[in-house]
């Protein structure tokens, strides 16, 4: 028995002459929650529809549990989808919506009843079973859609931006709840979203999709801290990207000049002296200090030009000597625009993202 639930091999999708997906290769392990993260129009919904069987790939193969799924209609696939608009049946009440899949499978009524109850308890909607779906709130409809898919125990659950229409507070609650349910059931989920914060909270692994290409796959931590390129780095949240020229490389540690700055960091790949590179430092990794730093590398002095108050923290825009603007996250609201400060960072937090 293979541990791979879903495998996509050299997948292409054309709409007429428009390329929607290009050479997608992806493996999802059993019990894993993989997020497909990408901006709108990146092809993530198309990818999900191909896995669910609503669209056929132009080229390439879809394997579920090692079985080739090309040409298999949705009703014969061991997948289930939670749709973006939820697609609850308006002519059925909550109970019958949830029971739909079991009724199609002609299960005995008492089994249907007990299973609906079970899944309704898991999602805390056991009080709503007699209601019409049109009488439910957004969050409740969300749960019903999830229950309807979970009850047929799909091998892979596909979720197409299901939390989109909810307000922020409810969305955050649902994210944690979904994660809890996924861990409890230990089932394979493929979750599509354009919200990087959602991806960070929810996923075991993330695949970053941009204009039909998978750019990066890995655990959220790997991708957040060691993004493959500038697009990924910027998509996962605010960051500082600095253009540098490599000065020396020694024992996996490189030194580079970036204008007046001297930056030292780990060389994650082979670097040549004189090579032009981009390095990334996340705003939360930069510390503000009030005295001049002891060393002249991985530090700078500058002036605060803007403060963006975000409640729990603030983003400071700091202009360093040669007009570079650094974004620095701080939890201490003690600074003022125009104040002169020193900043420093650790060489561990410097990431080379491209050459």
């Amino acid at each position, binding site marked *: 028995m293979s541990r791979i639930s879903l495998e996509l091999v050299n997948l292409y999708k054309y709409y007429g002459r428009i390329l929607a997906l290009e050479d997608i290769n992806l493996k999802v392990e059993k019990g894993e929650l993989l997020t497909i993260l990408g901006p709108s129009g990146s092809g993530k919904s198309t990818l999900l529809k191909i896995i669910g069987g609503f669209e056929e790939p132009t080229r390439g193969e879809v394997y579920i549990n090692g079985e080739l799924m090309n040409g298999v209609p949705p009703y014969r696939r061991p997948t289930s989808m939670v*749709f973006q608009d939820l697609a609850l049946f308006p002519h059925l009440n909550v109970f019958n919506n949830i029971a739909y899949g079991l009724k199609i499978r002609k299960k005995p009524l008492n089994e249907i009843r007990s299973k609906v109850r079970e899944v309704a308890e898991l999602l805390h909607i056991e009080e709503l079973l007699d209601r019409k779906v049109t009488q439910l709130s957004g969050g409740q409809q969300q749960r019903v859609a999830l229950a309807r898919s979970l009850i047929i125990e799909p091998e892979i659950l596909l979720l197409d931006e299901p939390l989109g229409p909810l307000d922020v507070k409810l969305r955050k609650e649902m994210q944690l709840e979904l994660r809890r349910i996924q861990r409890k059931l230990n089932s394979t989920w493929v979750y599509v979203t354009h919200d990087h914060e959602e991806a960070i909270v929810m996923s075991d692994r993330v695949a970053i999709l941009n204009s039909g290409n998978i750019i990066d796959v890995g655990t959220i931590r790997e991708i957040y801290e060691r993004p493959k390129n500038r697009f990924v780095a910027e998509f996962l949240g605010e960051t500082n990207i600095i253009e540098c020229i490599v000065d020396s490389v020694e024992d996996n540690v490189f030194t580079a000049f970036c204008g007046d700055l001297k930056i030292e960091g780990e060389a994650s790949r082979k670097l040549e002296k004189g090579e032009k590179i981009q390095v990334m430092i996340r705003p939360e990794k930069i510390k503000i200090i009030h005295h001049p730093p002891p060393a002249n590398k991985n530090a700078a002095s500058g002036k605060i030009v803007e403060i963006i108050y975000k409640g729990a923290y603030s983003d400071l825009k700091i202009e360093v000597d040669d007009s570079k603007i650094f974004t620095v996250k701080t939890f201490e609201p003690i600074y003022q625009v125009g104040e002169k400060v020193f900043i420093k960072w650790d060489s561990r937090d410097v990431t080379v993202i491209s050459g």
Partner: protein
Amino acid sequence: MNLKKIVGRKLSITLLYSLPAVAYLILFFYIPLITIIIYSFWHGEPLYRITRIFTLENYVRFFTEELSQNVFILTNLISIATFLVILIVAYPIAYFLARMTYGDVGLKIILLILIPLEMNYLIRIFAWRNILGENGLLNNLLMTFGLVEQPITIFFHSLYAIIIVVLHNALPYAIIPLYITIRSIPESLYQAAMDLGSNKLSVFFRVTLPLSMPGIAISFLFIYVPMMGEFAIPALVGGKTYMLGNFIVRQYLTIGNWPYASASTMSLVLVTLIVMFIVFKFLGVRRLYE
């Protein structure tokens, strides 16, 4: 200016605007209707002999006499049969237009179906006489190709002729509401049903059909209600078929028992209203505009 004056002026302008329509309705709808209601409670005999005394005998006669009972039942059966035939023809057309065409192509095709209906109602019926009649197009074709020896008669002066003509007349009234309801079912519902294990047939019976019930109900009303009062089509192509409309026309014009004819009319109106009420109440028509 105080509020009362503004409201008062607004009200008077509204009244002024609605005056022509109200006058028209009162003159040509409410006065005749009330006249019929009053007549239906008077005593009447053939040849326009009317005694102005209050009686329920006309209603009692309509619902108890065998002739009127039979005509009433037959008319209902024909109306329902016609509706079913039209539904079977219209549903696939509406389904195709709603789901297989893009943009407003479906609406344009519906417009094409509507255009022949601009032609006068009686002319259309006469056209059908020329097609279905003993020496009509249909029989000519059948005989030319040697399919029949003698002209066939079942399509003329028969129940079938009525259904064929009504099918032609009423098809758009079924296609349009069906098109609208089927079109309004989101694509994701079909996908969700398939996702949960429904094959195409099961999607149709569990999702498409229940969700197009409002459209079916509306087309039922569009066809059943006028059909209950129809008299021209049975008279011109129906042969011996005798519907409630013909029955009432005969009571008014040939026999001349106006109170009985009026009571028959009011009974027809009453039954139609009850049927409409039931359809509106139980077939989810309200979902259409909620």
